[in-house]
Structures are given as structure tokens and as C-alpha cells.
């Protein structure tokens, strides 16, 4: 079964068209990377997939596990197995990481027809997953993202990803603001979570993350749609030639 199928997607925000006929298909276990210059609609795509309000879908379809994603509420999408690692994770004062995760994991389990985890199993899971991205337990007692460094916030996103065990994980600029050590930790966490069932959509401006998370497919996005697709070597070509190469190329097409 195809995990994600996006067909001719057009999206407006505040009357401006951002996505202009976007197409993409992701199969189980595949890692897709989307690269492209700033302002080309990459983050819009991530938010639209996660169901953020404020975006108006004017045309096209999004199928997730053969369901019409457009009609599904954000929390329901998450329960179905879609996860977004935010580019700018939100700080939530007063709600601890542990509390958020306990609530989230049990909501997802409820959806899957499973009993809530008891405290013992939950704690085991919490520690195991935190370990994956090198977070200690004091970190779990802190309020969600409050006062976290950039690196901690991104690690926290990957930790949450691991906890929620999604079918499709979308990583929106997870590498931005990370130094090389943090980048390695995050990439390593993601690699540990790769398997034949789980797919990834990695959105990034730079190629460097793709040195650590090797994608199966690379797509280049420009002006609201994919203009070029290829294998992992496309990322390197893009890095060498820069986005101008693409702009000129694209203008040529027009």
C-alpha cells in the first residue's frame, strides 16, 4: 500500500498561492528528501500534511494510507501514524514533556485499540527512547521545549517521533540551527528508527543532513512544486551547482 500520495496539490495562505500543483508518492520504508530554496513552499507542505489550520487547499488530493487526509483533523492524522517534527517546536509552559508524552501515547494507543500503558511500561519506554537521542530523565521533567536550546528542541522532536512510532515521519528543517555534533545525534536517532514499515519525508535546505541520513529519493522543489527528482546523487549535484542552477534551468523550461 502506498503511504502517501499527493496529487496536483494547490494551497493558498492569505490569498497567496504557495503550492502550485505538487505531486509526490511515498511507499513503505522509503526515505524521501525535499530540497529547495527558501520561500518555495517546503514548510507549507509540512504544515498542510499535519493539518495546520489557516491553509486553504484549493485543488488536488492527499491520500494517506488510502484515506483522504484533507478531511481528517490534525490529532486524528497523528493517531493514524503521521508525525511532524517541527522546524520551530512550540514552548508549552506548565506541561511537562513526560506528561505530554503520556497523554499522547495513550491517545494513540486508544485509537489503535490498545490498553493504556501502565506506569511501569511507560517509564521503560520513555527511558529507552530518550536514550536514543541522548536525553536524560531530568529533561523529561521539564516543560515542553521551555528554555530548551535549539539542539535540545530538535532532539526532543526526534524523541517524540520515537515515542509515537509513526508510519510516516515528516522532518521539517530538523537540521537548521544544529551544530555538527547535534546533527549527528539527531541523524543517528533517525537512522535507528528507519525500518521497512516506516517512511520519512525530510525537508531541508542544505545537503549536509543527507550525508548522515541517506535518502532513497531526492526531490527539488521550486515555486510550489517539484521540478526535478532523482536519487541521493541529486543532492550532491544541487549542493555543487547551487539553487541558481535550478532557477536558470526552471526559467528555461518556462
Amino acid at each position: 500500500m502506498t503511504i502517501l500520495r499527493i496529487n496536483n496539490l494547490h494551497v493558498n495562505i492569505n490569498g497567496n498561492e504557495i503550492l502550485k500543483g505538487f505531486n509526490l508518492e511515498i511507499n513503505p520504508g522509503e526515505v524521501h528528501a525535499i530540497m529547495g530554496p527558501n520561500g518555495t513552499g517546503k514548510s507549507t507542505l509540512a504544515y498542510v500534511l499535519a493539518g495546520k489550520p489557516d491553509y486553504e487547499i484549493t485543488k488536488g488530493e492527499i491520500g494517506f494510507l488510502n484515506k483522504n487526509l484533507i478531511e481528517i483533523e490534525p490529532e486524528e492524522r497523528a493517531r493514524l501514524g503521521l508525525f511532524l517534527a517541527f522546524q520551530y517546536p512550540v514552548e508549552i509552559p506548565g506541561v511537562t514533556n513526560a506528561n505530554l508524552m503520556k497523554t499522547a501515547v495513550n491517545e494513540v494507543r486508544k485509537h489503535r485499540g490498545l490498553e493504556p500503558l501502565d506506569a511501569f511500561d511507560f517509564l521503560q519506554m520513555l527511558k529507552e527512547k530518550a536514550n536514543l537521542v541522548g536525553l536524560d530523565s531530568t529533561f523529561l521533567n521539564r516543560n515542553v521545549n521551555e528554555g530548551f536550546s535549539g539542539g535540545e528542541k530538535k532532539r526532543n522532536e526526534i524523541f517524540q517521533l520515537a515515542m509515537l512510532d509513526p508510519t510516516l515521519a515528516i522532518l521539517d528543517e530538523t537540521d537548521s540551527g544544529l551544530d555538527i555534533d547535534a546533527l549527528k545525534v539527531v541523524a543517528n536517532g533517525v537512522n535507528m528508527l528507519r525500518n521497512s514499515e516506516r517512511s520519512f519525508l525530510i525537508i531541508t535546505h542544505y545537503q549536509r543532513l543527507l550525508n548522515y541520513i541517506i535518502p532513497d529519493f531526492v526531490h527539488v522543489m521550486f515555486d510550489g512544486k517539484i521540478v526535478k527528482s532523482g536519487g541521493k546523487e541529486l543532492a550532491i549535484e544541487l549542493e555543487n551547482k547551487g539553487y541558481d542552477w535550478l532557477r536558470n534551468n526552471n526559467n528555461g523550461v518556462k
Partner: protein
Amino acid sequence: MNFKEKLINEFANLKQNGLRSSFGEKLSFVKEHTFQKFQKIGLPTLKHEEWKYTNLNFLNQIDFNLQHKRYEKQNPHQVNLLKYLNGGHYNLIRLMNGSLISQRIVSPSNGVGLIHFCENPLENFDFDLYSLFEKNFINDANPFGYLNTTFFSDGFKLVVGNNTEIEEPIVVVFSYDSETPLFTNSLNFIEIGENSRASIIVGFENFSTSEILANETINILQKKHSQLEINVIQNDIPKIYLINNINLIQHEATYSKSNTISLNTSFVRNNLNVSFDGEYSETRLNGIYFVDNDELVDDHTIIQHNKPNCLSKENFRGILDGCARAVFNGKIYVARNAQKTNAYQSNKNILLSTEAKINTKPQLEIYADDVKCSHGATAGYLDREMLFYIASRGIGKEKAKSLLLNSFVAENIEQIGLPELRDSIKEEIAKQLHLEDIFFCSTIDEMTKTV
């Protein structure tokens, strides 16, 4: 006949039926005097600065009458509030429709004494103590203060001796049980001796089938080096129009903390007043109000910094839903000689509906020049970015909302020092927010304890 005219009649009857013989010369004089003052100022209307946002039209729409007979039912309802408390370890003073009906003092009798006004009205009124509070707090700003003095017929005075630490909280429960609309007044005093420590819980319960207008006063005097915690719990009291007056005078080097919690109330006006009459004292005023439907909670606080080197910290948080209303008015007065005063005030509100309304106002009157004062008030809706972030983790809208609201008030709940009471209030609020166990386990340690 409007409510004021009715009160004038009532007072005329009272005089005719022996005000002097019932209360003695001195107290009768005080009552006459305060009633005159009331007559002059009248009942508050929206034109009255301190009552601008609190409509009292119901006073003329409901046929409230003063209670004349003592409450005589043999088996009054159980006190619900006690479910919050550790079996047996509390002192209990219970008033019904404004008269004291039962008392249970478990703390050692050499440390705690109770005087029941009604047992000997001619002897049991402490004029000196009353005058102290009258001077500070009974004025035109609150005509209900005049009415309280005029119409109270019962109350208690509880004294915690010097050098006494009482472990068991002092629970004061105001209960109401009436089949016709009733206007009740009680006037009570609590004195905390030097170097002593105590905690008070004030609760309200209504078993009436009819509306109640309750105008209750507790005057608390804290002698030097004493420490006090006051928890005012207003939970699940429909049909009561409550004017709750708590006045606190703090002598030198005293510490007080109050937590005023209003949940599921219909109409509440809290007048919470603190006066520093000694140096190096501190007070913390915390509050939570959670209003829905057409409920109203009006918290008026006054902190009088009369002496130098005192600290006050005030933190009230409100959640408003439906077409509910809340009022917060925090007055801080710093006298000319009260140098080195520190006074901080914060009032934050979350509105859950566009119909709900909050009127919040800091009111600073500062006459000293070496003072640190700050105040801040906010009102807003839940943060959409936060709600989306939580939803994106699979948590439904209602639960996401509850998590955020819960976290909004959590800090104030933590201020309740009595663990059983704190846990019960947590539970009550979690229940209202439809949150279950998650509330109790927010850290790894807490979760580990449940394994």
C-alpha cells in the same frame, strides 16, 4: 418595597424588639451608627467605583429576608468539605444560616479557645478588636461591611494562644439551608498569638432550595512573628449570592498566605483585605477562579502597606467560559512612611469564549518614594500554535485545551500548603477539565511512585 426599604423596616423592628436588651448598650450603639452610615451611602450600584462591574439588581428582584429564628433542624446535612480532609485531624466550626451550630476543637485546649457570641451576647463581643478592624476596613467602599455589623446576630471568636503551633487546620464552614430567600450575616474573629502558626480553611455549602444572600465576615489578627495560611474554597455553591469579607491585620514580622479558589459558583464577591500594622511582614495572595455559563466572580483585594519593609505578592489566575464574567481589582496602598515596600501583583486570564468578559484593574496609591511595585494583567485566548502542536501529537482538542488550562492554574494550586486539600483541589479542577490521572503524574518521579 425595594431591598433598602426592607432593611430600613427590619432595623426599625429590631430596635423596637429590643436591640439594647439583645446586644447591650455599646454594641447597639455601634449597630445604629453603622446602619446610619449604610443609609447614607445605600446599596452599591454600577455608579459606585468599587462595584462598577458587579450588578446587584437581583437584590430587588428576589425577596430576601433576614433570618429571625435560629436554625433548629436536628440533623443538618453532612459537611461536604470534610471529604477533602484527613479523617479527624481538623478543628471544625460550622455556621448555618449565619449562626454557629457546631464546634469541634481537637487541638489542645491550652492552645486554642473558642467563644461563641450567641451564648452571651452582652459579654462576648470584643469591642477593642472590632474597632481595630472597623478603623481599617469598614467604610463606604463596601456598604456590605456596614450591613454585616448592623445585622449580624451570631459569630465566633477563636483565639490561638501565644507560642502555639497547631497542626490541625481550623475549618470554618458556612452552610445554608432554607426554603425561602434568606439574607444572612455573621461576624467572626480569629486571633493568632505571637510566635504561633495555624492554617485556616473557609468553605461554603448550600443545601437550600431557595436563593441565599450571604454576607459573611472573618476578621483575622496576626500577632507578631506568627504565620498563617488561609484557604478559601468556594466550590459547587449554586444559588448563593455570596459577599465574602476577609480582613487581615498583620503585626510585626508576620507571614500570611491566602489561596482563594472559586469554582462552580453563581455569584461571588470576595473582599480580601490585608493591612500591615508592623514592619518586616509578608503576605501572599493567590487566587484561582473558573467561571462558566452566567456566573460571576469578583475578587477585590486591598493591601495596605502602612509600615516600612513589608512585602506583598499577589497572583490571581482566571479561566472564563460561556458568558461568564470576572472582576479583579487589586488595590495597593503604600503610606508615606512605608519605605522599602515591595509589592507585586499579577492577574492573568484565559477566555474560552468570545462572550466571556474580564474586567481587571490594578489600583496603586503610593505615597512613599523608596518602593518597588509592579503589576501586570493579561487576558487572551488559548494559544493556537500550542493547541496545534499538542494536536499534532495525537491529543484531541478538548484534552489539549484541558492540558493547557491545567498548566495555567497549576502553579497557583501548588501554593496550597495542606497536602490533602491541595490534592483534592487538583482533583476538582481536573474533573472540571475532564482530565483524569494524567494530572497527578507530571514528572518521572511522580510516575515512578505509581508503579
